[in-house]
């Protein structure tokens, strides 16, 4: 699927550009895109290094395990195939709570760490497990309590009530998360997983 999308984006883009006679833009776009990819990754290094360090302390001290215990009834239903005291569960829970509080920067490293732990449980290292897809779905549709970036933009443009969209955002995000979980469950069954 990603193969097809990736291929289509590039080939359709090039064909359209050729017909429109702006192939020069494609040249620029390719290098700009590549640069953006690397820039984002370098931006991630600082966040990843810092939060993985902090998370190591939380893990060694047992904090992550305590945390996991509190939220585990919910997580066990969402991730039935992850053993309940596996380290992956702790990271999944940390990722979920960070997302909930709008701490996107803190959520990504924990999500990646959770993926690494889930990969250890994965019999086929090239293929995503259902648990991985559920985690990904929770992250793309992330429930946001406080959309800080957009509030900042609204203030910037002189909104009379910048936070008035918090309620509507919460509603929309709840809908997308709900649909993500439902579709995930449906596909899980249809793709031959339990």
């Amino acid at each position, binding site marked *: 699927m990603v193969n097809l999308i990736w291929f289509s984006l590039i080939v359709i883009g090039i064909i359209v550009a050729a017909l429109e006679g702006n192939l020069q833009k494609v040249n620029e776009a390719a290098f700009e895109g590549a640069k953006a990819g690397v820039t984002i990754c370098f931006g991630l290094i600082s966040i990843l290094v810092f939060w993985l360090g902090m998370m190591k302390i939380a893990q060694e001290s047992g904090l992550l395990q305590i945390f996991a215990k509190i939220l585990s009834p919910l997580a066990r239903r969402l991730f039935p195939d992850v053993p309940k005291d596996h380290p992956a569960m702790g990271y999944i829970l940390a990722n979920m709570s960070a997302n909930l509080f709008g701490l996107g920067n803190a959520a990504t490293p924990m999500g990646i760490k959770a993926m690494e732990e889930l990969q250890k449980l994965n019999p086929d290292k090239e293929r995503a497990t259902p648990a991985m897809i559920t985690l990904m779905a929770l992250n*793309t549709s992330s429930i946001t309590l406080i959309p800080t*970036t957009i509030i900042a933009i609204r203030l910037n443009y002189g909104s009379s009530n910048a936070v008035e969209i918090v309620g509507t955002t919460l509603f929309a995000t709840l809908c997308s998360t709900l649909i993500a979980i439902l579709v995930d469950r449906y596909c899980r069954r249809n793709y031959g997983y339990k």
Partner: protein
Amino acid sequence: MYTLITTISVWAIPTLICFILVYGLIKGLPVYETFVEGAKDGFGTAVNIIPHLVGMMVAVSIFRASGALDYLLAFMSPVLSVLHIPAEIVPLAMIRPISGAGALAITSDLIEQYGPDSFIGRLASTMQGSTDTTLYVLTVYFGAIGVRKIGYALKVGLLADLAGAIAAIIIVTIVFG
């Protein structure tokens, strides 16, 4: 309300950091050494993501710059007018799952053009705040562990985005319409 929210967002991370450190110290951990040990993983993880992200960003960037995205939008606009969806919002709804930076740019542009307290301004704000960039999350998460066969992950992500966009249009119409 606003001061409460800004206060929470300012305090959340420092409080979390402090709590993790104090708890670690109470449990008798050498906190600094433990931090460094964990932090070592960060660099490698970020570097592993580079090829995946570069590949995806190049493709999205070409698709947008070529004008193909504009054609796709023009192709879709008749359907939207039937459903009473403002055409101005469509580029945002379509780009949101593909490019986070692109979506942010469009949102800023819409807010600047129509004003933050207009219908379109509020709708754009809600849409921007309510989902994450599916393609980016997919690339970063699966890229980090080298998974190539992603199964139904994209389908789940995109359907959730669609649901979020529709929900945003409905709720903004009800609340602010």
